[in-house]
């Protein structure tokens, strides 16, 4: 792989007079599994939306695989996205297979219908997520964990190079949370993905990802020290406490391994 998947250069986002992101500089290498952590209202979702092009920064530049996200989206084949609340209307009458097929629509393009190959890929994604038996069920009838698997399958239906997951494990119980992170890890290897995952659960994130971005208006990148997972977790835990409660401004620090 190699190369830079995401690059933010001096990005500022203001909303209703408040600064949400302040002078954010960030480079994410292709092929990394990156967790984004931060307290409520710290700008986690805003950071993702800037990367996706859903929010245009007031200042600074965003590049995803070297292109502006607003242009990149028109190709419909680079970014797979799981929004924070993907099921706005639980009574929406679509089957699981239909939902996963939506991930193909960008590739299929306007005025064309899904072909057999699209359906096969959608079914393959359901297999990948361990839920082929749910294909004909209504999305609103599934449990929370099953729904999240469906929406990850949809994001992967894009055949993306970058997978962006906004709080995929919120409101799921601990076992299911671990399953989802582990599943994403497996799929990342299999499909050669770069993964960005937003969460507020420090422990779970630290167990699974390669890099951690802490965000509270400004960002702080942690890279894992060459010690065991437990070491990483405790080191990271302290650093995060410090970041959350301290008033000391953090700039981006590379290979930060205190």
């Amino acid at each position, binding site marked *: 792989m190699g190369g830079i998947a995401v690059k933010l250069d001096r990005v500022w986002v203001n909303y209703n007079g408040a600064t949400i992101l302040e002078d954010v500089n960030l480079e994410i290498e292709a092929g990394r599994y990156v967790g984004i952590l931060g307290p409520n209202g710290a700008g986690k979702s805003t950071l993702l939306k800037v990367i996706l092009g859903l929010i245009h920064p007031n200042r600074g530049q965003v590049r995803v695989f070297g292109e502006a996200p607003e242009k990149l989206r*028109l190709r*419909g084949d680079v970014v797979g*996205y*799981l929004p924070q609340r*993907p099921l706005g209307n639980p*009574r*929406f009458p*679509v089957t699981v297979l239909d939902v996963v097929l*939506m991930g193909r*629509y960008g590739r299929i393009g306007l005025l064309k219908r899904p072909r057999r190959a699209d359906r096969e890929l959608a079914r393959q994604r359901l297999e990948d997520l361990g839920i082929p038996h749910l294909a004909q069920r209504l999305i609103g009838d599934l449990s929370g964990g099953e729904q999240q698997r469906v929406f990850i399958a949809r994001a992967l239906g894009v055949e993306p190079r970058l997978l962006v997951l906004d709080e995929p494990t919120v409101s799921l119980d601990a076992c299911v949370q671990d399953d989802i992170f582990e599943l994403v890890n497996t799929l990342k290897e299999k499909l050669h993905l770069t993964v960005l995952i937003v969460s507020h659960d420090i422990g779970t994130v630290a167990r699974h990802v390669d890099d951690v971005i802490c965000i509270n208006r400004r960002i702080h990148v942690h890279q894992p020290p060459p010690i065991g997972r437990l070491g990483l977790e405790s080191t990271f835990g302290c650093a995060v406490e410090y970041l959350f409660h301290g008033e000391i401004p953090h700039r981006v620090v590379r290979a930060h391994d205190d």
Partner: protein
Amino acid sequence: MMIDLFTLGFLQRALVAGILVSLLCGMLSTFVVLRRMAFIGVGISHSAFGGVALGFLLGVDPLWTGIGFALLVAVLIEWAQTHTAVEEDTAIGIFFAASMALGLIFLHLSRAYNVDVFGFLFGNILAIGTQQLWQILGVTVVVLAVILAFFKEIVFLSFDEEMAWVSGVPVKALRYLFLILLALVVIVTIYLVGIILVSALLVIPGAIAQNLSRTLKHMVGVSAGVAVGAAVSGLILSYGIDFPSGATIVLVLAALYLLTSLLRPWLLCKSQHQ
């Protein structure tokens, strides 16, 4: 009576117009319900009153000024919501009240109390002439063609607008397009049930279909079928018992909604076990 219905010209036109208009309403109704746009339907239809009154004032066909007003308000609602801090339902509330107030001023200025304002407010399907029938046919062709062409994208953005945007779907253009379709359909529906009751045809068929369907295509079909069925039976019924046709159609729909809501648990349970 049934013989009248199929031999008298004005009744034939009423029947054809009723079928086409209700078919369109039924199809759009699915998306109006799923996208929770019921209030937009009310807003656009009531705004048309301003346009219709402007037509009376200027002495032009109220259809065109009505379409102009409805489109303008539809676009303004969307614009205000994306470009200002105002909430969508607040924007609708302001624009539709303002354009109805404008309508009253226009009527006052035109001193046109003798024209058929009542017909526009409550519908007068029996007054539909050949010209109106052609207008309805034109709108039907345009709206059906656009819905069929962009069906999968409209479903996608109704389901999850953010993911649709990220996947490259032209979300903004389609949102405006849908509002334009809605405005066109609202205007021709005014012939059938009048400004006051248009929103019933944009909301109730979809709500009934949601009670009866498990898949989206099924829902669109049921919604269109229910709307056409209610329009035809409402027309026949109103002619037979000499009731206002628009109100009769809406009451048939409301009764069906009530019935399907009561039967819903039983109906869905049955279809699940098939």
